[in-house]
């Protein structure tokens, strides 16, 4: 089970969280202007990164807030957590596995 750092509550077991998938997919501001390919990209296409993945988590059985995390999908190590609305943090690639 993963140990996940909620930016509001601290480290908690994975069972308290819900996974929210790829982060930073903004809902289109003018939906009517999108063509079918753009809709498909928004709804269905996912980066599915092997490596550092920016993703959403929700502390569903805790403070119930969404936040974002960077996790290495080849090790499942969390590299950073940050609040919704904040930019994806730059990683110091020389280490930083927590």
């Amino acid at each position: 089970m993963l140990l996940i750092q909620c930016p509001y509550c601290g480290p908690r077991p994975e069972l308290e969280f819900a996974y929210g998938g790829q982060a930073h997919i903004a809902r289109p501001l003018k939906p009517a202007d999108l063509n079918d390919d753009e809709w498909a990209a928004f709804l269905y296409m996912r980066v599915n990164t092997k490596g550092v993945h920016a993703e959403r988590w929700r502390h569903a059985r805790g403070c119930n807030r969404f936040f974002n995390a960077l996790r290495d999908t080849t090790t499942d190590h969390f590299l950073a957590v940050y609040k919704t609305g904040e930019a994806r943090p730059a990683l110091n690639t020389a280490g930083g596995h927590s």
Partner: protein
Amino acid sequence: MQRFSAFSIIRRGLTGNESWRPQWRRASPKASYDAIIVGGGGHGLGAAYYLAKEHGLTNIAVIEKGWIGGGNTGRNTTIIRSNYLFDESAALYDHSVKLWEDLSQVLNYNVMFSPRGVMMLAHNVHDIQVLKRHVHANRCNGVDNEWLSAEQAKEFCPPLNISPDIRYPVLGAALQRRGGTARHDAVAWGYARAADALGVDIIENCEVTGFQKDAHGAIEAVQTTRGLIRTKKVGVSAAGNTSVVLGLAGVSLPLESFPLQALVSEPIKPAFPCVVMSNTIHAYISQSDKGELVIGAGTDAYTSYTQRGGLHINTHTLDAICELFPMFRRMQMLRNWGGIVDVTPDRSPIIAKTPVPGLYVNCGWGTGGFKATPGSANVFAWTIARDEPHPINAPFTIERFRDGFLIDEAAAAAVAH
């Protein structure tokens, strides 16, 4: 190819078993091929076999980064069934079940297909409605599936606990008698041996690391850890790694890769006659011919490429197994493991051409593609050979997500199997 028969086994046994030869050659990459399959799982090896057998393409290779059958083919719980809801799915999965029925004879390799019956349990009103809808839809498509009361379900599977006071009581079940299991490794090995005999090179420990395209953007070569190999046709069957491989060619897909886990118990005498699945409480179980109980869990919540998941997923499944089959409560589990499954938004596969000419993809089988191995490989080979889909896989395109023609099998494939 040395053919297997009772006679050959006795004859070679009497002469010290020294005349057996390896079942396929250890091939090294040639400079070029007419077609290359990426991924030596059952789907990739099967596609190579059908390309050679049915389409006369024998100057081809299967490229596998590890060892053949080491991916999900060798990690799954081997449940085979075709009771999916929609017409498109019924055609695809039933094509596969029909190929399973004589696969051992066709390949001259015992894949141990055992149509012992697959029973899916209903635990609430919603389950009953969904499963009955499947029974009727399947029968309209000529796919066998029948509704059983709880008592009939227990008759079919005596270890089943149908007492009304368990947490999720069994209210009935849908039974597909033609469903069952097969031996996972044997499927990979059987296809490898038969493809090799037709001239296909099976190249292990060789990872595809890039694609080279010509001036028109069509495939002209693949880069691998064992050098550049020229080819104009590449079929990718890389399961959980498909996004990575197609990403090398600049193609993005509606896929997410999740860990899916399974576990086996210590071996015991034959005690469990069929396959039982419960989508609602996330458990499925059968007994292998070695005697182990083979138990599958649900996917982990997050995407990953680690081929392992959280232990709590397995314990959750074992809670359900112990409740449904109290006689297994004191059994010991021997091993657990994970595979990485590539899941589409509509839980149906993609078997199609890609936007890159000469590049074809067979993916999105998620938690349930073992059952489809022969059928999927068969129509994928057709698609690669003719540069157009077979009528059976024509609906399973990438463009369906753009055009809104989803094949939503979330109910049939809700949990792993």
